[in-house]
């Protein structure tokens, strides 16, 4: 079957199988930032934004995104660079496997809540697992990112 959707502001028309999952379609579209982890919606490393909401691409059928918008980390490169600078400062990552998904989740959080508390950050990211960092430094880095963004907006 044929679907059409927006991928990082580009229109994509492609043929898919009825049971094909979004992660497979995006990989065929040369999107390599999405990782396959648990494949059962638990780990969050396959996160993409569907109409600006974070969803697990391992559990969304490609047919479901017909005429919708998908954003991957390639589509928010500028925001990701700013966030990754804070990750570097706080020593918040090691292998980087979960980072693209985490960046997308943070981007989605910012759209909903531009001044989250530390607890709200933790609660929003509960479905994004990281097996290296222990989450503390990630939380600090994300809080610092939000602080800087708020400061920039005030200027």
């Amino acid at each position, binding site marked *: *079957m044929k679907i059409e959707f927006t991928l990082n502001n580009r229109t994509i028309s492609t043929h898919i*199988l*009825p*049971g094909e999952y979004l992660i497979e379609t995006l990989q065929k579209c040369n999107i390599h930032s999405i990782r396959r982890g648990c*494949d*059962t*919606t*638990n780990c*969050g490393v396959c*996160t993409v934004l*569907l109409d600006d*909401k*974070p*969803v*697990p691409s391992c*559990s*969304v*059928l490609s*047919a*479901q995104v*017909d005429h919708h918008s998908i954003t991957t980390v390639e589509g928010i490169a500028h925001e990701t660079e700013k966030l990754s600078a804070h990750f570097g400062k706080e020593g918040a990552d090691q292998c980087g496997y979960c980072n693209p998904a985490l960046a997308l*989740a943070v981007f*989605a959080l910012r759209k909903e809540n531009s001044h989250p508390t530390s607890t709200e950050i933790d*609660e*929003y*990211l*509960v*479905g*994004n*697992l990281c097996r290296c960092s222990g989450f503390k430094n990630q939380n600090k880095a994300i809080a610092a990112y939000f602080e800087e963004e708020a400061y920039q907006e005030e200027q």
Partner: protein
Amino acid sequence: MRIERYMKASSIADAFAILQERPDNKIIAGGAWLKLTDPVINTAIDLSLLGLNSISEQDNEIEIGAMTTLYTLEKSAIIQKMYDGILAQAAMKIMGITIRNIATIGGCIMGKFGFSDIITPLMAMDAILVFHQHQRMTLEAFLDSKANFQDVLIKIVIPKTEARGYFHKIALTSLDFAVLNIAVSRKNSEYRIVFGSRPGVASRAFAAEQYLKELKNVSEDIINKAVDMAASECRFGTNQRGSAEYRLNLAKVYAKRGIEAVTDYEN
């Protein structure tokens, strides 16, 4: 899992007609638990074009569209107010936001999943299901039905009322299914005590509810007796998350806290 055909329904009647064509035609709801269901689906029926994803307040009841996501539920001001917000609390404890953005209330109900955190509070809120063919049916009647239920769930209706509520979920980790969940509600002298993830699908403690209904005031002894009745009335099982004995003990502790909460009882 294999899907032969995918179809976005243009109307509820359209979805129902395709559902009747073959037993392996299935409504996919949000698709969140699709990998846990049938290995082969002939036609996957998508209801996303039918506008069933909103919550509205009517004169006497709250209507929740079957395709409303769990994240919409937890963020809804209407749902946060009802029964002290037990349905919103239950939704926000389910795994991560990514899955709550796709999982729907209708999918949680139609799966009759034993692990469901959504069915438990809905039962304590006297939820009524509205189907295309079966029309209105209580949630309990639906859960008790043994027949293969090839119908389209349109919405979930909750009678508007002043009521108190309590919900608690016990899980080994925040991403895991519950070892046990419990909802207690009180509407005037009517009580509901519901245990879910027993690990079977949620069930009510009718005798304990009736016992509390017949009493004008609660006391420590009355609550303890109601808790014992509730715990002995519901059956608890063993799986990899916990033993039947562990669940029984949890049920007693949290049923007591629930009854105390909805009666504002302080020892």
